[in-house]
């Protein structure tokens, strides 16, 4: 039994650096069943309508991670995105290359920045030289130890998260969600001997630029949940090194800030994060805002029963408790 087909209109990003100065969008219309994957449609376009279309793909089964692209502005695998729901939501299907990586041609990007960040976290086990992996025998891990990896081993390195990340887009020093999720995987590996070193080294550049916007977790086709693992890395980094970076000073400062009143004391937090001297950099903007909003200078009143909050801190905010 064949499914009824519907006309599906595509607008596909086209760019050939040899001949084009600007990208353009080319329209194609195909009659397709709603369950057709976008990748299948693109391959039909290439086979039947336009052999010049460039795209990257391989397995067609959401395993290889090759066909990530933007479909109606979302970073997805083309092989597992069906045309029906896209047409229902948008009335057309706009196909573009991934973001945050230079376009080589049409839908094909240069993934060098993505792989550079991946290599930068040294994605291999660092063993204790005194206790190398026993030759010829697998090492064992308890089920509890395996559970600590959470979903990170599922990553297929498709770069959908890297494409979706606004911090990568705005700041090339941020390693991106995939590299950090991979870092987490090595930090929690019981065989790895470089946990602390890895956490110390990642902080100055990468870790604290994460916006916790969860766009990576939305984009990930394998539910690796990078944003949640980056949160875990932040807490572990504070445990290993204390609040040494501006980001960790802000997080720890915010936490400590609430103990006195149960609500935020904005001025005190700015002082904690920047230090007295650094605070001067904020004075100009502060004055501009204060003209309309005098409250930013107020000390807020403590909430009622603030001692309840303080008791919760006593129970859960000790070094032992946070481990």
């Amino acid at each position: 039994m064949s499914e009824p087909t519907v006309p599906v209109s595509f607008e596909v990003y086209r760019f050939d650096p040899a001949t084009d100065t600007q990208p353009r969008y080319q329209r194609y219309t195909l009659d397709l069943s709603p369950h057709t994957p976008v990748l299948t449609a693109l391959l039909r376009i290439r086979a039947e309508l336009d052999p010049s279309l460039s795209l990257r793909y391989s397995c067609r089964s959401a395993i290889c991670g090759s066909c990530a692209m933007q479909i109606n502005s979302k970073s997805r695998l083309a092989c597992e995105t069906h045309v029906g729901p896209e047409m229902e939501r948008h009335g057309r299907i706009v196909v573009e290359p991934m973001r945050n990586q230079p376009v080589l041609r049409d839908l094909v990007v240069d993934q060098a920045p993505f792989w550079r960040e991946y290599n930068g976290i040294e994605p291999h086990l660092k063993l204790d030289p005194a206790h190398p992996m026993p030759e010829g025998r697998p090492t064992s891990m308890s089920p509890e130890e395996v559970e600590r990896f959470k979903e990170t081993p599922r990553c297929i390195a498709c770069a959908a998260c890297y494409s979706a990340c606004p911090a990568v887009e705005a700041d090339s020093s941020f390693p991106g969600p995939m590299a950090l999720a991979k870092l987490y995987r090595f930090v929690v590996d019981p065989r790895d001997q470089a946990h602390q070193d890895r956490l110390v080294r990642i902080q100055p550049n990468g870790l604290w630029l994460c916006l916790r916007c969860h766009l990576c977790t939305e984009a990930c086709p394998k539910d690796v949940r990078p944003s949640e693992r980056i949160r875990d890395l932040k807490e572990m980094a504070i445990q290993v090194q204390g609040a040494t970076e501006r980001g960790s000073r802000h997080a720890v400062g915010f936490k400590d800030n609430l103990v006195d009143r149960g609500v935020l004391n904005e001025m005190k937090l700015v002082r904690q994060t920047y230090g007295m001297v650094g605070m001067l950099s904020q004075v100009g903007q502060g004055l501009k805002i204060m003209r309309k909003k005098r409250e930013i200078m107020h000390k807020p009143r403590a909430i009622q029963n603030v001692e309840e909050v303080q008791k919760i801190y006593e129970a859960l905010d000790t070094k032992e408790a946070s481990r």
Partner: protein
Amino acid sequence: MKLAYFPGCVAQESGKELDMATRWVAKALGIELVEFPNFSCCGSGFVDEANEVLNIAINARNLAIAERAGLDILTICSTCQGMLSLANLRLEDPAVRTRVDAALKPLGMSYSGRVKVKHLLRVLSEDIGLDAVKAKVRHRLEGLKVGAFYGCHLLRPADELAWENGEEPHAFEDLLAALGATPVYYRGRVMCCGFPIQFVKSETASRIAGRQILDAKAHGADAMATPCPLCHISLDAYQNVAAKAVERPLDMPVFHLPQVVGLAFGASPEELGLPRHIVPVGPALAKVGTH
């Protein structure tokens, strides 16, 4: 309808206009806001970074306070919404539950997990309903093109917050249309405002904010509107810094969600705290010609 009002830190201090507008709109719609002067800060995502279980516990206390009063919680901030909802969800993990219960017990408190946490946007869409909202409109915002800006924690992680379709939300746009305004769809509406790293690397944060405003502008928005006072700080109070970061003039009025509702219901700009904005909203008000 009666809800435990969780205004959050910002709406009680520098974002007071949001609190003013919320009270005005709630009164107009017959929503009773029950106040709890013992509610604490939600931790704003920062406490979560420093100590996850502590963050869940302080929010479990807030939830327990509402539960004791037999009320669901109304939030007016995407981040408060996110933190309280995530606490509800994480408490389903038995290991977390045990530690949090142990911290609450000495206070004579316990939390069963039954309190619903709802943002004002959801209450307007689902509980009040857009027909009832429409019935209160005295001055349709005809001709005003508004770009909704949701704020991350109202939408994501979508599978955990489980309300709107996080990827393609439309509740805010539907509300704007019900008020007579023209919603503007643009990619940036579900993106990040940059606020979480404003204090880590201001330049990067501002570039992110600037790009979303430029995107709204490129799609024809006369104004933006947000359900999150932290986004409002990035988009309004720091708009001059964002303009510098993207090297373009922005001049984009940014409303809090209940301010747009209040305007359509006939409230005055003063009642809604509009003179408190850093970027003047005058040009947007002139478009609808009420004030």
